[in-house]
C-alpha cells in the first residue's frame, strides 16, 4: 500500500544514528536474511514506540553495504523499551524503497519478527521486539 511504502521511505531518510540517545542499556542484533545481491545497501530503521512507527518517525537507522546472503545490523546501547523494525534493500541506491504505481514495494523488504505483510504494513506489535537490559537478537527475512 502507498502508506506502507511512504512510511519506509520517510523512515529511511534518517540514516545516521541519532545523537542524544539516553542512558545505554542493551544491544540489538538484527540478522537480515535472503539478501539477493550485493548491489546497493541494506536500510534498517528502528522506531522507539507505536506512535513513531505509525507516523514513520524513525528513531534511529543504519545503512549497510549489501552482501548476498546475510547482513547483520547492530544497534548498541538502546534504552529499554519496544522497538519496531523495518528493513529494505535499496538496490538502486536512491535511498528510497522502490514502489510501483499502486504503491506496492518493488525492492525487497521485511519487518521485525518476520511479521507477515498482506496488503498493508504489519502492526507495531507484530513488528516490534522488546529490549530490557540483555542483548536481543531478531531475524528479518527479506521478501
Amino acid at each position, binding site marked *: 500500500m502507498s502508506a506502507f511504502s511512504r512510511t519506509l521511505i520517510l523512515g529511511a531518510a534518517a540514516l545516521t544514528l541519532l545523537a542524544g540517545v539516553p542512558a545505554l542499556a542493551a544491544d540489538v542484533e538484527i540478522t537480515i536474511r535472503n539478501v539477493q545481491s550485493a548491489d546497493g545497501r541494506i536500510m534498517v530503521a528502528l522506531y522507539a514506540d507505536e506512535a513513531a512507527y505509525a507516523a514513520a518517525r524513525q528513531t534511529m537507522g543504519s545503512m549497510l553495504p549489501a552482501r548476498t546472503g546475510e547482513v547483520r545490523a547492530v544497534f548498541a546501547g538502546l534504552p529499554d523499551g519496544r522497538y519496531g523494525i523495518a528493513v529494505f534493500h535499496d538496490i538502486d541506491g536512491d535511498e528510497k524503497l*522502490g514502489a510501483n*504505481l*499502486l504503491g506496492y514495494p518493488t525492492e525487497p523488504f521485511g519487518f521485525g519478527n518476520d511479521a507477515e505483510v498482506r496488503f498493508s504494513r504489519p502492526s507495531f506489535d507484530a513488528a516490534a521486539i522488546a529490549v530490557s537490559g540483555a542483548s536481543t537478537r531478531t531475524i528479518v527475512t527479506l*521478501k
Partner: protein
Amino acid sequence: MTPTRRSFLAGSAAATLGAMLPASLMAGTVSPATIPPEEWRSIWATPADELDLDGLAVRGRWPAGLSLTLYRNGPALHTLGGYRYRHWFDGDGMIRAWTVGQRGASVRTRMIRTAKLTAERAAGRRLVPAFGSLPPGAEPGATADAQNPANINALPFGGSLLALWEAGSAYRLDQDTLETKGPVVWGKELANLPFSGHPHFDASGSLWNFGLDYTGRLVVWEIGADGAARRCKVLDIGYAGLMHDFAVTDRYLLFVMPPLLIDHQKSRRVAFLDALDWRPDAGLRLVLVDKAELSVVRQTVLPARFVFHLGQAWEGAGGTLFCDVVTFPNADIVKRDLATVMDAKLPGHPRSRFERLAWPPAGPARLEPSIDNAGVEFPRWAEGGTAGSGRSVLMQSDTKRSAGWFDTLLSVDSEHGVLQRWAAPDRVLLEEHLPVGRHVIGTGVDAASGHSFLHLFDAEGIADGPVAWVELPVALPLGLHANVRIHPT
C-alpha cells in the same frame, strides 16, 4: 474430408498406440454417451515429461503457404507433493505450442518457470495459496507475483511470447524455445502491477489491458505495437471482484464488472475463490473509460449476471455502444462447476448465453440474448479490424450430451444469429477456437483415444468439418486461451 472417429484413430501415431487405449474401450463395451471417470481424469492430468515431438503427420488438406504456431496456455500440474488442487484454474501455466505447415507438424510443451513453480518444485510441495485452493502450510507471498502461475493466456507479441495471469506480471518467454525469461517490467514504477489475461488490440495496433488490485483500484495499460508501454494509469473505481475480460472500441474501454465481490474479512482465512461472494443485489456494473484521457466517462448498473468473456464492441449511430457478452445467470460456473472437474466429475450443463449489450448515451442500457443457443463460451473474432460487421466463433457446450464439455463450434453474427455449426464426434472435447485469416483453428482432446489434436476449418465451411488436422499420441490437459503466430513462407 471429414475426420470421423475412424480417421482420428487411423493416424500412424495412433495405430502404434492402440495398446494405450483402455481395454474396455477397445472391446467396445463403454457407452459412447458418457466418459468414464478414469478417462475424464486423464484429460486433466499432466504428462510427466515436457514434450518435443517432431514429424507429426498433417492430414487432410492443409493450405499451401500457411505456416503457423498456435500457442495455448492453461493450468497444468494440478498435483504436487501429494496435494491436488481443488480448482481447474489453480494449476501452473503450461504452454502447448503446435507448429504446423504443409510438410509436417511439431508439438512442444513447457511448464512456465515462474518464481512460484520454481520455489514449490524445490520445496516439493505447495508454498502459496492458489485461486481456489489453500494448500496445507501455504503462506501468502509479499506480492501477488509470488502466487503468479502465469496460466491463463499465451500471446505472441513484440518478438516474445507473453504468458498471462490475472493478478500479477506478464511472464516473457522465448517464442521459439519457450524458455522462460522472467516477469515483464514495462517501465519504472510498473513492476509487479497486475497485467491480466485478456489484452486486446485496437485498430491502431496498440495492445490494451487492465488489472485489478482487489482493493478497489483498476490499472489500465496501453502498450505500443513496438512492445513498449505507452501509458499506465491507476483508476480508483471502487470495484474489488472477479472481472476476467474487457472490450476495446475506437474511443473507449468497456469494463463489465460482475457482482462476485471480495469479502476481505474472509480473504485472510480462505482461498481467494472462497472469499468471493455472489452479490446479485449489487448488479452488473458497466464502466466506460475514455482512451484519450484514461478517465471514467460513463457508468451504469444492469441486473446481475456473471461474465467471463466479452466479444466484439463498437460504437453505433448516435453514440450507442454495442458489445457481445457471454453471460451466466450466477457464478456457479466458477464457484462450483470448474472445481468439480478436479474430482473427475462432469460439470453441470452451463446456462450461459450470447447476449448483446446496447448502451445509449442517454437512457438505460439493455442486455438481450442474440442467439437461442445456451451453454456457449470462448468468443473469438478477428481483432484490430473493423468491429461490428465481422463474425465471431465460439464454442457450445455439450450439445450432444456426450462429452460433458464443449463439443460444438459455432460461427455467429450477432445481427443474424448462428450462421454455421459443426458438432465434433462423440466424446471429443473442444478447446477455444479462433479465426486465422480465411480459416478457423482450434484444438481439443479425443477422450476415446486419449489423444489431443489440432484442426483447421475453412471459415466459410465450418459446417463441413475440418479440412486438415494433426493428432498427438498423448492427451494434453485441457487449456484456456490460445493465439497464433504466422510464420513467413
